[in-house]
């Protein structure tokens, strides 16, 4: 049997190919560069501001730093590391993000395996429900969940925030992983079953290693969402359990703000997702294509 390849008809390049070709050309690089720079300028301004005194910030623009480098100081950072509230909220962010990510990945992977490979009654209908849950906006659930938490006495606790994130993270996690797991060749699962592998063994020895690209990218996405979340934490945490995003938000006012806390705090908050992104960008690209290309 021969391998069939799409035959290129001379003179008739499909539109998609032509667009793709244009997009990878030099013009595209310039557009990307311009957009990137425009987007980065405010961030750069914030970054530089985080090294300036509050009085300087309110009097002159951040760009004056290029002509007066003497303005630069680490005082804002030393202040913020001495600020108990900010450090506590950073710690809260970690306490919320890590379990919320781990639970979503673990439960999502188990459920996805069941949806992909275990035959049980009503499986397809249940999966339709799960997919349907993806479109439910968070806002709809805020009030009912708040009253539920009140009754369970976990309103304002970190557990409450984590559970909310897990609940709303799972549908997408299950959906993404199920599609990826379903593309794993059946024979690999059966080869393991033939040697006495239980469902749990198959999950550990076949599904997890072969599904790793999707699992890793899901973990990254989920980590970033939870780390950067403001809305959920704003509603369900209190002054003691609030994460960094809420702590920073409380330093913003309609007229003026505690810029000396905001600027370095924002960078503290930003640095972790940046590290995660650069460390795992390989999985990012793979994860975005999860399901579209066979694993």
């Amino acid at each position: 049997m021969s391998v069939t390849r799409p035959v290129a008809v001379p003179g008739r390049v499909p539109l998609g190919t032509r667009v793709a070709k244009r997009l990878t050309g030099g013009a595209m690089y310039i557009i990307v560069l311009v957009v990137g720079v425009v987007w980065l300028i405010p961030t750069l301004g914030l970054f530089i501001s985080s090294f300036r005194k509050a009085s300087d910030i309110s009097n002159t623009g951040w760009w004056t730093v290029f002509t007066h480098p003497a303005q630069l100081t680490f005082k804002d950072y030393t202040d913020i590391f001495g600020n108990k509230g900010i450090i506590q909220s950073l710690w809260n962010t970690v306490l919320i993000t890590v379990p919320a990510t781990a639970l979503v990945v673990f439960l999502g992977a188990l459920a996805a395996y069941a949806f992909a490979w275990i035959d049980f009654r009503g499986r397809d209908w249940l999966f339709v429900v799960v997919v349907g849950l993806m479109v439910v906006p968070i806002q709809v659930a805020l009030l009912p969940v708040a009253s539920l938490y009140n009754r369970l006495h976990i309103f304002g606790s970190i557990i409450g925030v984590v559970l909310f994130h897990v609940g709303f993270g799972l549908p997408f996690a299950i959906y993404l992983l199920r599609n990826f797991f379903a593309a794993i060749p059946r024979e690999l699962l059966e080869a393991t079953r033939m040697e006495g592998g239980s469902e749990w063994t198959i999950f550990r020895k076949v599904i997890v290693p072969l599904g790793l690209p999707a699992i890793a990218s899901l973990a990254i996405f989920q980590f970033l969402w939870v780390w950067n979340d403001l809305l959920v934490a704003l509603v369900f945490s209190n002054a003691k359990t609030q994460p960094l995003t809420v702590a920073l938000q409380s330093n913003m006012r309609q007229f003026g703000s505690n810029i000396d806390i905001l600027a370095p705090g924002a960078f503290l908050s930003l640095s972790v997702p940046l590290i995660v992104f650069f460390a795992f960008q390989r999985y990012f690209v793979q994860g975005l294509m999860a399901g579209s290309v066979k694993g």
Partner: protein
Amino acid sequence: MADVRFIDATRVFHGAWRPAVDDVSIDVRDGELLVLTGPSGSGKSTLLRMLAGLEPVDRGTVLIGGKDVGRTAPDKRGVSMIFQGFALFPHQTIRENIALPLTMRKSSVKSAAARVQQVAELCGVADHLNAKPDTVGYDVRQRTTMARAIVRRPDVVCLDEPLAGSGTPLMMRGRSPIAALQRELGITTLYATCSSVDAWQIADRIAVLDNGRLQQLGTPAEVFTTPATIAVAQFLGEPGMNLLPAPITAGTAHLSAFTVVLTPTQSAALTTPRVVIGIRPEDLTIGSGAEGAEGIRATVVLVRDTGRDYLVTARTVVAGEESDLVVRHSEGPVPAKGERVVLAVRPGASLHLFDAGSGVRLPE
């Protein structure tokens, strides 16, 4: 080592309107290489999977070494399976892949390593043990699956379309040591394939399935020379047998200027007054279209050059119905497309007669 018996084995998939495997009874002898063949969807893979324990047996019994394995877990049956598309783990080395059946059974690391080395040498993959499956060639991957299948000393090996789509079942070719290995080790082997030609050269016996039913079980020669049903006749041989439906009047069928006379027993066995006459392409010769010559009058519609001979397709009309006949033409002038010819049956060649109603071969 063990023999395998299927007794009225049946499997009905959930929601299917007919069984995937329907009342199949086969005895596989100890050490035999049985080829299961038939068109795709005929149930041969399902039958293997029932033996391996990957599919339940809905009705009937499957015995391995005389023991009913209906409730035995797949890993306790002494059956190993070679899957379509190899099923090697891409993230593990060839060594780890071969060792899988041993590591899954928690055998001691030392004895497992020795056994893997031994099997790898036997199958000729000892040089590649540290490579990942996607870095080695097709042939090595194939040998690796074989090594993994025999590493735990199974009684029965099942090969499920091991090389479907690849076009070259090297594993079973004469130049591959693996076909010889099967003989040497004497492992009872069931080999499911939809390519009848490959099955040919290696099988001790062939079981032909169609629509989940066993059509015929016999040596390759038996199945080829006396196909038991129309399905077998159609499926075996390359190209398959020509099949001409013809009405029977007074114990005789007419194919233009060619007549077939049925014996009284054959006539009695008919369920409808129609017969299907089977003629192998090898058993037909092309004569000139001279008037009065006895034979099947036909018009050439296609001539294919196979390199060794020609496959001539000719169209004839039997009782108002058009039928195409393929002739393997090796001597004499090659007819041109559109030419009118007379097809004769080679002297000494046998015709195959089937009841058109049931599809069963008529008695001699």
